[in-house]
């Protein structure tokens, strides 16, 4: 009997322990999300109620901030910034997928002279800080007449300079069963055929992860956009937002928060609809995020 009591005490202790952990995780989660939730809710409050109001309860609801924010910056509507960003991100995703999956197929599946050497170089280049190449690239793009266009953002993706994704895809391509290739080779399938008919279709999940992170990082990539885009009509969301804040910030915080909220919607949507690919991508390759 005593042993039974001990067991019960033990499991009661265990359950309490678990509840405490849940409680801690939930509380910490609330603290972490508070700023974001505050931002979204404040974007629906009248301007004079935003300051210092810590509560998450809406006393009055208005869309005025969205209407005034949408007018944008120096005569260009915010919608334009969104279209520009979507355009850049869309092209970047396609370019990155094509170039990185090709390189990954070569590294992960084919035998060739110099493979170990190039693979080593590729891994090292993941760790290179971008700033070493920034200035000469700028000078080069300038001589091509590419400044104030989207080419300096998209062309590098077409040449797989985001080497990190090559690595991600190599990891995946390597894990695909080799028997398939052998069977296909016997059936007369060339290296090109194997790429298009076997590797690409099977690499679906890794390609989705690549597409996702390319989209997100291009969407938020302030540095390159700041560097290469000058004209307001070509501004992307981060540039538009920044210009808008600097121009009207202190007087119209409601609109700033409203446009900030809007700017996050694409990332949120992608995240919640494709969550499993995020976790897979991060866990298997350690995406820095």
């Amino acid at each position, binding site marked *: 009997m005593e042993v039974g009591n001990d067991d019960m005490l033990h499991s009661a202790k265990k359950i309490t322990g678990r509840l405490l952990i849940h409680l801690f995780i939930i509380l910490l989660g609330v603290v*972490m999300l508070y700023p974001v939730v505050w931002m979204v809710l404040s974007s629906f409050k009248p301007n004079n109620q935003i300051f210092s109001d810590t509560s998450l309860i809406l006393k009055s609801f208005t869309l005025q901030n969205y209407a005034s924010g949408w007018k944008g910056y120096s005569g260009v509507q915010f919608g334009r910034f969104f279209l520009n960003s979507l355009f850049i991100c869309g092209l970047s995703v396609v370019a990155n997928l094509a170039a990185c999956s090709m390189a990954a197929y*070569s590294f992960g599946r084919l035998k060739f002279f110099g493979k170990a050497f190039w693979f080593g170089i590729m891994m090292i280049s993941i760790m290179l*800080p971008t700033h070493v190449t920034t200035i000469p690239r700028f000078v080069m793009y300038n001589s091509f007449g590419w400044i104030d266009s989207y080419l300096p953002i998209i062309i590098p993706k077409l040449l797989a*300079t985001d080497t990190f994704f090559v690595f991600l895809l190599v990891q995946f391509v390597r894990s695909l069963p080799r028997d398939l290739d052998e069977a296909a080779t016997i059936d007369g399938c060339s290296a090109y055929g194997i790429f298009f008919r076997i590797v690409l279709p099977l690499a679906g999940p890794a390609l989705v992860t690549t597409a996702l992170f390319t989209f997100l990082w291009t969407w938020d990539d302030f540095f390159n956009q700041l560097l290469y885009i000058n004209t307001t009509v070509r501004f992307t969301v981060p540039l538009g937002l920044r210009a808008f804040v600097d121009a009207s910030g202190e007087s119209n915080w409601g609109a700033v928060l409203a446009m900030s909220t809007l700017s996050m919607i694409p990332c949120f949507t992608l995240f919640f609809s494709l969550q499993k690919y995020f976790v897979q991508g991060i866990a298997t390759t350690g995406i820095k995020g």
Partner: protein
Amino acid sequence: MLKGAKKFFRNNSAAYVFLLPWLLGFLILTVYPMIQSLYLSFTSYSMGREWGWIGLENYLKMLSSDRITGDPQYLKSLTVTFTYVFTSVPLKLAFALLVAMLMNRGLKFVSLYRAVYYIPTLLGGSVAIAVLWRKLFAKDGIINSLISALTGAEDLPGWIANPKYALGTLVILSVWQFGSSMIIFLAGLKQISPEYYEAAEIDGAGKTRQFFSITLPLITPIILFNLIMQMISAFQAFTQAYIISQGKGGPVNSTLFYTLHLYNKGFYYHEMGYASAMAWVMLIIIAVFTAIIFKTSGSWVSYGSGE
């Protein structure tokens, strides 16, 4: 001879065709610019203006605090960046590991929690969040409202506007984004076989002992990985400092990140030769720290059977 060449070509052509985009990108957009920037770092290059070879002058300028020939802000930017890297990265990893361990207890709703904790990482790099941060930590921001509501304290500082605290708000912003490191830790913790813990329990080892003798040694490879990746990206932090200080690195240079200073030198003052030299020094600093971590990793990273 010709036959051999033909065979060599046949065996390698497909692989190089697939490799071509990356190879071109690597040569044209990485190797060439790196050599070019090394060359420019010894010149007074400035787009459109006359320039010439000046030897080590750019590098000496970084070390000098003379107002005319030197760059008094350089050492400040280095201090700011080091402070940022060496506070934000350890704190971030400690948080990530702590929360990952709590979540690894076979709890329900882990995937929901994981998603919630990832949201800051998802959004943290954006201009929107940086803008929000500026508002949160302003003198009349909600952080101060919260503090005075909780403690009754009045006359709190404007955290962003105060040179003592501005960098701290950026560290908090970075630590806030511990979600992706946490997911990596969580994946690593799942690999540790429960048998180790069962055996330890039988031997009478307590929770603390189990953590230091089993968990920690077995995830050291993941700590190493996270440490290096986070350190490299922390050295390159730019957007948040740019937005929060409106491009200037203020107040009183307290948020003048290395990259921000480099950007201003290269693209605002058009001292591109000098900015190239700065970039190379940064590369060397990152390489040295990565090498130190790798070298010392032999003594603290265990590649045991738990992997």
